[in-house]
């Protein structure tokens, strides 16, 4: 059952140089109990999609086309009051737990309780506190830490607190935006394990946004690869990771470092795409190792490779 349906979404930023097309006609479906990863380099538009779904785009950004369907409501055309209700209660967000991601002068437990008390007005202070304690044990933070301030937490603990906060209102969907990027590998592993087990236990749909394809492959059932604001490959984890079809995905994997690597990582040549004046035809063409006669002029269409696997490419 489709939980979240994003259809032909386009987001444009107004910049000094002109309108910047951060997201261009992106469509995907997030099923219940499933996690989908969005991978891409910085500037590929993946974070913008997350913020667009939450309805928290900055004032110079605009959704120029498309719909975001959740529970039979289109979030794009909904008034702010509806969005406010949906936010956190149904769609929550986990972000990078930088030092200032949590209010530095408020106790952590209090910040989480605040979300609960706002979305469920009938709840008493004591009940909220109990809920916070439950959440803490669920994510693995010692209960007595809930009265501490954010600066007293370690990086990993802060990330867990952010996860606990996202879970506080039992949402249906969680958007996880680079949740492990700032953490060291061991803590990263623990956090991913926490996320995975929580997802299995609670059946939440997760949209996992990251630039690190290996992290995404660890946690997600489906993977979407983004480049220059467009979705270029979508498939199951096995399909995308083990048999990548799009040249960009292949380059991305080749550029990666693994323990069992038999080859040196290969960087992708060329410069990052210009989103204000995108190239005609395929946007990846100038960096692609294809022959590129059709790609340079014609915008590539979707080519279906299997039930779940499709790419946007002109080549075989």
């Amino acid at each position: 059952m489709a939980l979240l349906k994003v259809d032909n979404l386009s987001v444009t930023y107004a910049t000094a140089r002109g309108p910047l097309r951060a997201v261009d006609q992106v469509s995907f479906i997030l099923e219940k109990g499933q996690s989908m990863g969005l991978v891409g380099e910085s500037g590929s538009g993946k974070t913008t999609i997350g913020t667009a779904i939450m309805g928290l785009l900055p004032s110079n950004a605009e959704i120029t086309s498309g719909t975001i369907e959740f529970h039979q409501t289109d979030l794009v055309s909904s008034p702010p009051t509806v969005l406010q209700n949906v936010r956190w209660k149904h769609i929550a967000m986990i972000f990078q737990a930088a030092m200032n991601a949590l209010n530095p002068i408020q106790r952590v437990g209090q910040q989480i309780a605040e979300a609960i008390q706002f979305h469920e007005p009938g709840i008493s202070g004591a009940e909220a506190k109990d809920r916070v304690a439950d959440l803490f044990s669920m994510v693995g933070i010692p209960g007595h830490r809930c009265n501490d301030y954010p600066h007293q937490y370690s990086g990993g603990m802060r990330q867990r607190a952010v996860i606990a906060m996202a879970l506080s209102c039992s949402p249906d969907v969680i958007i996880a935006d680079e949740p492990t990027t700032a953490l060291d590998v061991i803590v990263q592993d623990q956090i991913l394990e926490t996320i995975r087990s929580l997802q299995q236990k609670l059946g939440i749909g997760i949209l996992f946004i990251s630039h690190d394809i290996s992290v995404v492959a660890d946690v997600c059932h489906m993977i979407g690869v983004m480049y220059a604001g467009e979705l270029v490959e979508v498939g199951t984890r096995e399909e995308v990771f083990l048999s990548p079809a799009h040249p960009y995905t292949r380059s991305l994997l080749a550029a990666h470092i693994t323990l069992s690597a038999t080859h040196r990582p290969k960087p992708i040549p060329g410069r990052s795409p210009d989103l204000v004046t995108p190239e005609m035809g395929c946007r990846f063409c100038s960096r692609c190792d294809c022959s590129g006669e059709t790609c340079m002029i014609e915008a590539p269409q979707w080519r279906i490779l299997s039930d779940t696997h499709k790419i946007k490419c002109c080549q075989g």
Partner: protein
Amino acid sequence: MDQSMTASNERSAPHLHDGTPYWREAFSDGWALFSSHPVGRIGIALLAVFGLMALFSFIPQAIDPMYHPMNGVDPEISHATGPSWHHWLGTDFIGRDLFSQLLAGARIAFMVGISSAFMSIILGTAIGMAAGYFGRWIDTILMRTADMVMVMPTLLVILIMASLFGHLSIWTIVLMIALFRWPGVSRVIRAQTMSLKHRPFIDAARIAGASHIRILLRHILPNVLPLALLYMTFRVTSAIIIEAALAFLGFGDPGTVSWGMMLQWVWKTGHMFQSPNWLLPPGICISLLTLSFYMIGRAMDEILDPRLRKSDG
């Protein structure tokens, strides 16, 4: 690697980016933004008006000696009068022309403001550079001193000094104001110096054998000076206000006609209720001149700190 790594650059002023001296680049960028900034434009316009007033202050007494702000007395008038053809703003309690007093006040205000600000910039820059460059105990002592000086109520301290020295001349006042307003500048300069201290071109200079003084004067100072000059505007405003307050309380230089002095006269001679033509102009001028410098300072602030700029993003 930037070009400034080579030892030969030790002789010329440091070039940080693509070869243009840092301050010239900052200046041209700044000017473009400044002239499109509404608050900054109003500030400059006001400043220009007062500048003209100051320039024209020499004209009235040249036309007729009775217009001299201090000594000129209209033979026909010996008391306070309202505006008239001969005296555009009227006369004060002994028949002196108020308009020429106002113009002279503009001249004094600029003189006091700019010289005092200049002196405190020199002092603050020297101390800030020393603190930032040498660090450790020199830094601690200098910054603690700065803290203490900064919290002192300047006006009252100068008042006390006035009691010790008897009457103050205008230049003594300027000097004393400068002696108390330098801490603000020194902090900013110190921070900038500390960040510059570790740049490669400073190391290059040291390796090439430059002495500390040479490094400070030739390399750090040119990069730090634009910042100092930028913050000068706030020094000017406080200098003008303090001088005006001192004059108002009766501790100004009796030989100079400043706006504060004019206010003192209207107050002490009991004319403040009868002569709005005398009471209003000096106060308006002080406030507007201060406002203009303040506006310029804020415009510069917004230009320097991109987060405060009006355009989002």
